[in-house]
């Protein structure tokens, strides 16, 4: 009795392993040392459509889709025969008998005799086709969502402006005898045309911006001073202090032009935030401070303002194109979007923090040696 029960607990290794491989949902293919197929499990036969008689004796070239080049296979075999790694794992596109392309996650491992001599290879793979389709669908949906947001904002911006142009022109036609109105109206039309040109220009700059390999030495202080010159009249008008705390020798690596444009947008944004705070009644004590320093990740430039701050709801959207909280229809909502795009394309990072009052934008760029 005791013997019988202990027998039931001890499986016969060979037949158990064979059943496992046969019933496995992943595909299993075994080849001899020359690469000729000597075994495939039912999951493999079902996925690729080749019966044992159609596949045994052939090599894995049977499944080649042409999606991987020679270099790919060379690298793969180099890794399998390297005793240090001893196997290869990766995504590969195969072709079934019917011609269907199948993306699988494949692991190829050599199997050895007890003396350590390679006898052949086994490939175990999971079919990823369904996952791939779902991933692709999800990506398309994300793209559509972004596109929808984009086009709504764009339509609003351009539609309103076109409305003003058309309306002003019609209004002028009705009031041709009023020279004062004529000049004003024509000025508006010219201004609104420029606005549409600006929006389209910004949008194109934004969408065409690519990762840049330009790696020039950017002297931070000089560039920041130039950007500040541009906003100085507006700062004076609103009695905003401009504070600069960047040492002469601090330098980053990147594209000078894009860096300059980015900080110009950021400084303009700071001024606008303060103007908004002034409109809300806080008139005195405003300041924009720019601080530069080195840290472990590179060179950091901090732009700090005492403006109206950014709500927690808005802070996640602030770098999105066409996002604006400006009350008067002046800004296109592209400035911060472009600034962040430019910084990221230079391999840098931009972060924003705001706790109710004021905001800090932190740019990190690679350090110039």
């Amino acid at each position, binding site marked *: 009795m005791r013997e019988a029960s202990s027998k039931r607990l001890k499986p016969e290794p060979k037949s158990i392993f064979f059943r496992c491989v046969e019933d496995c949902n992943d595909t299993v293919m075994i080849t001899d040392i020359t690469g000729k197929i000597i075994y495939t499990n039912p999951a493999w036969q079902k996925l690729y459509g080749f019966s044992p008689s159609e596949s045994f004796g052939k090599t894995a070239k049977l499944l080649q889709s042409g999606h991987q080049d020679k270099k790919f296979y060379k690298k793969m075999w180099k890794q399998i025969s390297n005793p240090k790694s001893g196997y290869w794992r990766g995504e590969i596109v195969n072709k079934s008998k019917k011609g269907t392309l199948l993306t699988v996650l494949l692991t190829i491992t050599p199997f050895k005799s007890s003396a350590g001599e390679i006898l052949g290879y086994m490939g175990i793979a999971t079919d990823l086709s369904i996952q791939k389709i779902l991933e692709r669908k999800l990506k398309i949906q994300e793209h559509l969502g972004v596109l929808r947001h984009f086009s709504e904002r764009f339509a609003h911006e351009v539609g309103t402006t076109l409305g003003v*142009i058309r309306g002003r022109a019609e209004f002028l036609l009705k009031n041709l005898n009023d020279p004062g109105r004529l000049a004003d109206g024509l000025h508006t039309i010219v201004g609104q045309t420029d606005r549409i040109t600006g929006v389209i220009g910004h949008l194109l700059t934004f969408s065409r911006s690519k990762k840049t390999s330009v790696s020039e030495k950017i002297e931070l202080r000089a560039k920041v001073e130039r950007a500040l010159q541009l906003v100085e009249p507006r700062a004076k008008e609103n009695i905003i202090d401009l504070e600069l705390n960047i040492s002469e020798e601090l330098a980053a690596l990147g594209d000078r032009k894009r860096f300059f444009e980015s900080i110009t947008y950021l400084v303009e944004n700071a001024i606008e935030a303060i103007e908004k705070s002034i409109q809300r009644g806080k008139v005195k004590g405003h300041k924009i401070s720019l601080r530069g320093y080195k840290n472990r990740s590179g060179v950091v430039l901090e732009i700090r303002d005492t403006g109206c701050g950014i709500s927690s709801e808005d802070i996640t959207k602030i770098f999105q194109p066409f996002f604006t909280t400006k009350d*008067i229809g002046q800004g296109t909502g592209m400035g911060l979007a472009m600034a962040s795009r430019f910084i990221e394309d230079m391999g840098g990072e931009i972060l924003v923090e705001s706790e109710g009052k004021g905001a800090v934008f932190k740019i990190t760029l690679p350090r110039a040696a």
Partner: protein
Amino acid sequence: MQQDLVVIVDDDEELRSLLKDILESDGFQVLAFPSPHGAVREISGGRVNREIKSGNFPIVVSDNLMPGGMSGIDFLKEVRRESPGIPFIFMTAFGDDEIFRQSRELGASSYLKKPFSLNEFSEHISMARSDLKGQISRVERGK
């Protein structure tokens, strides 16, 4: 005779000033706001509110997409809470059927797609005005 009052809400300064010029040259009195907040204050408590109480309803013209956390749809709800009788002309850029349906369900009187022609705009205003006159004469007849 008392001038009819129009309340305009649009974040675009140029569009506000254009609509104001058009309406004023047609003899309307105009109050324009860059966001719904100011307009809501006026309608629920300010001068516009006093006008409403004395039976002089304004015509409201509002954009939908505006910064500041309050959309035209939200604004329409506020106006309807104050009075179901105020004509409300809803504007959006190029139009969106879903927003159109929503504004209709909430009781907007008409819907304008930007960019619109002056004729369209004037038609919508005069439609709203005749609605208003109809309402008032019905009220007077009922007295």
